[in-house]
Structure formats: structure tokens, C-alpha cells
């Protein structure tokens, strides 16, 4: 039996610029938006687009991600034929290799892809917040009779030099690829989402694998090789919400944008394109008579006695009476004790912020510091954490960290 299109999801990235948040887990497993993890977005997009076979390429800190994906049931990806499979690097009779690059990760799993005899393979990135209908992308790919298509976003010209850019003709055919150029000829940034005809992808993966000088990377090697050979390559324009949450600030900002679906373009409340996730199984949250909650998202299992403004509380967060939480992202099971003030920051899972501690501060002009507390950390009573701090270890009572 053949599948028309299967997805390969690159989830091996360390996300090193998320620092303390990705010390114990891979970037795609980072919690997002109250009850999700980043990888829920591409996985849900797959299911909502009708893709029922997904290979997840993992490498860095795969434990949390493996457990989270499990048999794929929360995404309806527990299938008899297909479904979701986590694909770590493995040992072969000829020795074992880590995934050397994005293309190499796919190349080492050619036999997985071939089990499903797909016509098309979509390559996805596990570290973007985006709601996208891949079936519309495939329709474009087929209409253009393309061998390779890439999803692109128009970005402001002044930001274009930060991206991989696709130069196209009036028919959206790609004529040139510029990787982070000084003088951009285009403002169409690659989203790192590709559709390949499988026979073409297979041929170029094997060719690339034989090249000892290759970095085995889609952007640096595969796409230039396709261009060299004049393949039928097209750029698919996507104009919805898309965010690479690769930095602390962009992760914080994307969370804040979830609070403003009317203006930000990221609407999680849309029942026609649900984002699925593994459920916490906790009872409804409780808002006490002393609490003040405004402009926030609160998840099952939370207990709110303090003041919560413009913030996201993940499942099972406790905010005690007299505590203040503002412009903050508070991940699951964290406790904020009475009198603590927590502002403009990201606090990871299972953190305890003791009484009267101060974490982060509202930014002064031109600053964008987002204080960050790693998971399982205890911030002692009366301790002070500065707006640019990156806290990985317990902070003792009354101490300061900047």
C-alpha cells in the first residue's frame, strides 16, 4: 500500500540559544502556550492536513520527547500502517553515525521512508510555531509539476539578510538561493519546510552522501545541487503566522502573542484547526476570592490566589495570595509563593519561587531582557533575579543573580 505523502520532522536540534530551557530536553519538546509543546504544532498540522505517517528525527536529549510522543495517540497518530515513529540514530553493521546534518538525518532513514512507498515527502522543522495546511502546499506542488517546493514567507527587506532567501520569477519558479546574503535579491525567506518528489529526494540524498566535502544540509547542499541541475523548483507563499522560537525573547514573545489572537495572527481557539497535545489530566483550575486575573490564559490544575496579568499559566501552577505575576510565562507545576513578584520572564517547570522573591522586571526603554529560570530550580525567600538573568541552579535566600 502506498502513501501519497509522508512527513519527516527534524527534531534533533539542541536549541542552544534557549540555554537553560533546553538543558534537559530538545527544543521541540519545550512547553508553549499553556498546554502545548512546540512539536504539537507540526504534528497537529500533519493530522489536520491528512498526513498520517510521520518520522521524527531525534538526536539531542530525546528522553522527554520520546515519552511525550509515545504511541502518538494524542495526535491520532497511532495507526496500524503508518502513524508516528521516533527515529534516533542507530547502529548499523557498518558502524553507527550521529546525524551529521539535516539531509543526513533523512538519508539514514531512507529505508523507513521506503516502507510506505510515498510519492512525496514533506520535510518539517520541529521548532516553529505555525498553523499551516500542508495539503494546500502539496496542491501547489502538484499544480506546478514541481520536483521540489519550499514554503516561503515575505519578510521585511531590512531583515532579509538574516534568512535563507529564494529568488523567483513571476511564475514562482526558483532561480537562485541566497543563504544569509549581504545584498539580498529577494525578501522571500525559506521556512525550512520542503516538499520533494520522493524519487528526486532519494537521488540527491544518496549523491550528497557520497560527497565527503558536504555538510549534508538541505540549505547548504541539497538545494544548491538541485539548482545546479536545473530541477523544477518552486516557492510556495505562506502568509499566516510563523515564528521560529529559537531565542528566549522570541519564545516569550510568541507566548505573549497567543494572548492576543485578534491582532497577533496566532489563534489557538480555532476549532477547525485544533492543536493537539498530551493532556495533564488535572481538574479545572481554581480562582480564589482574593485573585485578580486579567488578560491571561490559565490551564487545568492551576490554583490562583494572587494577581495574574497578561501571563500564561501552564497546568498545575500555584500562585499564592499576594503574589504578582505579570507578562510572564509560567510552565507546569511551578509554585509562586505569597509576596513574590514575577515579571517579564519565562519560568520553566517544577520551579518554586519562595515568598517575597523578585524575578525579572518590566523592561526599561530599549531593553528586551527576559529573565529565565530553568526547571526544578528553587528561588529562595527574598532573592532577586535580574531582568537578563539565566538561572540554572537554586538561588539561596536573599541572594541576587543578574
Amino acid at each position: 500500500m502506498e502513501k501519497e505523502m509522508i512527513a519527516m520532522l527534524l527534531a534533533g536540534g539542541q536549541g542552544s540559544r534557549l540555554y537553560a530551557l533546553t538543558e534537559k530536553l530538545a527544543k521541540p519538546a519545550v512547553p508553549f502556550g499553556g498546554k502545548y509543546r512546540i512539536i504539537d504544532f507540526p504534528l497537529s498540522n500533519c493530522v489536520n492536513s491528512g498526513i498520517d505517517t510521520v518520522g521524527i528525527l531525534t538526536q539531542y536529549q530525546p528522553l522527554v520527547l520520546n515519552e511525550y510522543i509515545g504511541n502518538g495517540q494524542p495526535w491520532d497518530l497511532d495507526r496500524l500502517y503508518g502513524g508516528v515513529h521516533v527515529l534516533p540514530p542507530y547502529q548499523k553493521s557498518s558502524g553507527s553515525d550521529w546525524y551529521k546534518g539535516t539531509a543526513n538525518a533523512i538519508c539514514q532513514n531512507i529505508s523507513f521512508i521506503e516502507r510506505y512507498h510515498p510519492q512525496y515527502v514533506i520535510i518539517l522543522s520541529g521548532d516553529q510555531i505555525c498553523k499551516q495546511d500542508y495539503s494546500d502546499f502539496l496542491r501547489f506542488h502538484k499544480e506546478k509539476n514541481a520536483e521540489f517546493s519550499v514554503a516561503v514567507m515575505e519578510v521585511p527587506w531590512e531583515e532579509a539578510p538574516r534568512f535563507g532567501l529564494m529568488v523567483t520569477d513571476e511564475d514562482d519558479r526558483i532561480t537562485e538561493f541566497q543563504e544569509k546574503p549581504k545584498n539580498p535579491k529577494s525578501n522571500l525567506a525559506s521556512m525550512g519546510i520542503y516538499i520533494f518528489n520522493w524519487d528526486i529526494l532519494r537521488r540527491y540524498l544518496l549523491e550528497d552522501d557520497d560527497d565527503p566535502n558536504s555538510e549534508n544540509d538541505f540549505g547548504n547542499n541539497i538545494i544548491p545541487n538541485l539548482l545546479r541541475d536545473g530541477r523544477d523548483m518552486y516557492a510556495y507563499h505562506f502568509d499566516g503566522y510563523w515564528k521560529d522560537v529559537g531565542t528566549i525573547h522570541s519564545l516569550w514573545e510568541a507566548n505573549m502573542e497567543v494572548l492576543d489572537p485578534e491582532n497577533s495572527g496566532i489563534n489557538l481557539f480555532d476549532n477547525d484547526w485544533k492543536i493537539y497535545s498530551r493532556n495533564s489530566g488535572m481538574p479545572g483550575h481554581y480562582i480564589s476570592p482574593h485573585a485578580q486575573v486579567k488578560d491571561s490564559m490559565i490551564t487545568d490544575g492551576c490554583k490562583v490566589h494572587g494577581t495574574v496579568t497578561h501571563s500564561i499559566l501552564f497546568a498545575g501552577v500555584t500562585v499564592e495570595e499576594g503574589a504578582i505575576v505579570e507578562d510572564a510565562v509560567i510552565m507546569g507545576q511551578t509554585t509562586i509563593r505569597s509576596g513574590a513578584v514575577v515579571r517579564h520572564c519565562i519560568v520553566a517547570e517544577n520551579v518554586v519561587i519562595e515568598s517575597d522573591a523578585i524575578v525579572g522586571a518590566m523592561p526599561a526603554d530599549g531593553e528586551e531582557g527576559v529573565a529565565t529560570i530553568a526547571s526544578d530550580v528553587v528561588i529562595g525567600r527574598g532573592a532577586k533575579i535580574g531582568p537578563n538573568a539565566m538561572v540554572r541552579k537554586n538561588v539561596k535566600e536573599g541572594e541576587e543573580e543578574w
Partner: protein
Amino acid sequence: MVSAHVNALGVIFPNSYDSLVPELVTDRSMASIPFASRYRMIDFPLSSMVNAGIDNVSIVVRKNYHSLMDHLGNGREWDLTRKNGGLNIVPPFASKAAKMYHGRIEALYSILSFLRSQKEEYVIMSDANVASTIDFKDLIQYHIDTGADVTIAYADRPLSEDTLTNDDPNRDMYYTLELDGQRITDLRIMPRDLGVQHLSMNIYVVSRKLLIAQIEDAYAKGYVYYERDVLLPHIRDWNVQGYAFSGYIALIHSMRSYFDENMRLLDEANAEALFAEPVYTKIRDDTPTRYTNGSIASNAMVADGCVIEGTIENCILFRGVKVEKGAVVRNCILMQGTVVGQNAQMEYIITDKNVTISARQFLKGSASFPVYINKGKVV
């Protein structure tokens, strides 16, 4: 075989006490009545069984069971999709002699051949009108340690006013126990005594073999009620033990008690007691609940997927409820999918699923008589 689990199978009767809350069960059973912001009543006994390691549970349904089947599905959320045992929903068997069962005896008779073919030593039976934190492992150990023939769990509490004043001749019966030590010496049917009683929770432990024998005998004699017709005649020659349960318990026996038992969970200590062990339920994949800029919330238990733009105070909100701008909702229970329009005002109202309250409506019940609005209704 390695086993940290109890050697028992579970049987739940989802329709018992339907007669006490006729409005809530017009198109569902007692077991599928929504409770505590995101659960159904059956989630509590079912989760208690699963938490005790029971992985073979039969639900003997009588009528109005579509909502219950929809809720339970294949039992995956309770970890009951098992090759052996698992969740076993037994609808009435349509044969020539088909009739809806009345008492437990007919219900159990309908699964007799199933019971005969099982391997577990004991059977735990429970109704679905009671949400508690009972530890079935401990209950069975008690049953074994006392060498009981039958063990009945009970709670010491006074009979409620609703119970004492309900004169409906068709109402489901309740029982209190008379004890000598922990040995039950009498089973009293619908007494009207004031003060604290040993009120039966209608949770029973009995060995599977004895239960089969009891049911075969009772059915042949045309008996209907397990308590009245099987236990009571033998109460002195069998060792029938009372198991005192002193943990948290929510008992639904009237619309008023439904309202009160929900509201009681706004006391955090009560909610913590009831949810000390995990309670499993159907997953709906809701978003977190959103409180917009003008919202005011105070003393409320709110499930995921709600949007609060107005004011909520002393409320239980189920999943996907919307309270629009300027609306004021006080002392209300709003079930899944209720929409309260702009500037509407509500007090002491229970809305069933998918009720819409139009803008600027004013609705008021009272603490002793909360007003109930039918499923799907537009007010």
C-alpha cells in the same frame, strides 16, 4: 504472574438513582452526569477501580446510555483498553424475553455467563451517584481480613432533607446499616431517622463464586433487589461486614444536592481531597481558558477551553463555556459549551450542555432552588 494489584473485577451500575434527578437524566444516565468542571460521575468509581489496579470493569447499562458510551469510548482514557478484561459495556440484551432490568439482580443475571468465565476472585460493585476517594484495595483487604461473605462500604452522615422528604413511590431505594461492631445486623430500607446514620454507599465486595450462586438462586425465585431480597434474609447467618469510609464523598440524590456538591468543591480543601488520586476522563483537546482584559473572576472552578470576558463569581464552569462582555454570572453551574451573551445576568442557575443565554437576559434562582435549563436550550 506478577501482581501488585487486587484480584477483583469491577461492576458499575450507571442507572441507579436516575429517578432522583429526572431533569439531569432526560437523555443520559446518572453515570454520565457532568460533575466538577470536567468530569462525569462515572469517572470517580471507574478511576478508583483503575487506581486500585482493577483492569476488568463491566458497566451494566439499562437505558439512555448513548452519552455514556460516547464518554467511555473504548476505555483508553482510563487505561482500560486491555486484551484481557478492560472495559466491558453491557447493554440490555434484546432477546424474546427482553425487558429492562429493575434491580441489581436482573442486571447481574444478564452478565452471569460473563462472571462465570472470569478468573478474578472478588467482585466490587458500585453505583455511579457517588464521587469519593475510596481505596478499593483497602476495601478488599478488609473483606479478606474479616472473612466476610459480603462487605458493604458505608459513610456516617445524616440523611439529607431531600432524601427525607422525597415521597415519589418510584424512587430508587437507599439503605442504612445497623452494626454490631463492624458486623451488619440489619439493613434498613429507606428509614426516615434523623441524626447521623450508617448510610450505605452501595459499594459491595463479594467473592465471584458466591455472587454467582446468590444471583442464580435469586433470579430463579424472581427476586429483584440485591439488598432487600438477597442480603436482608441472610443478614444474621452470613458474615456481612460494614466498611467505614471516612474520606471525602459527594453524593448526588437530588437537583439540590447536585448543585451543593459542585459548589462544595469551591472550598480548596474539598477539591484537594476529592482529587488526591488521579481522576481520569475523556479528553477534549481544549485550549487553556482565556481571561480577557475586562474580566473579573472570583471563587470559581473553571475547566479548559473557556473564554471569560465578563464576571464570574462562585461558579463551576465546564469545558468550552463562554461568558461575554458585561455578563455577570453568580452562583451558577454552567455545563460544557454554555454561552452567556453580553450583559446577561444570572444567579443560581444550572445550565445543561450547549445552552445559550441571549444578551441582556436576567435569570435568577435561589440557593435552595437553583433553576435548571435544559440541554441545548436558547433563552
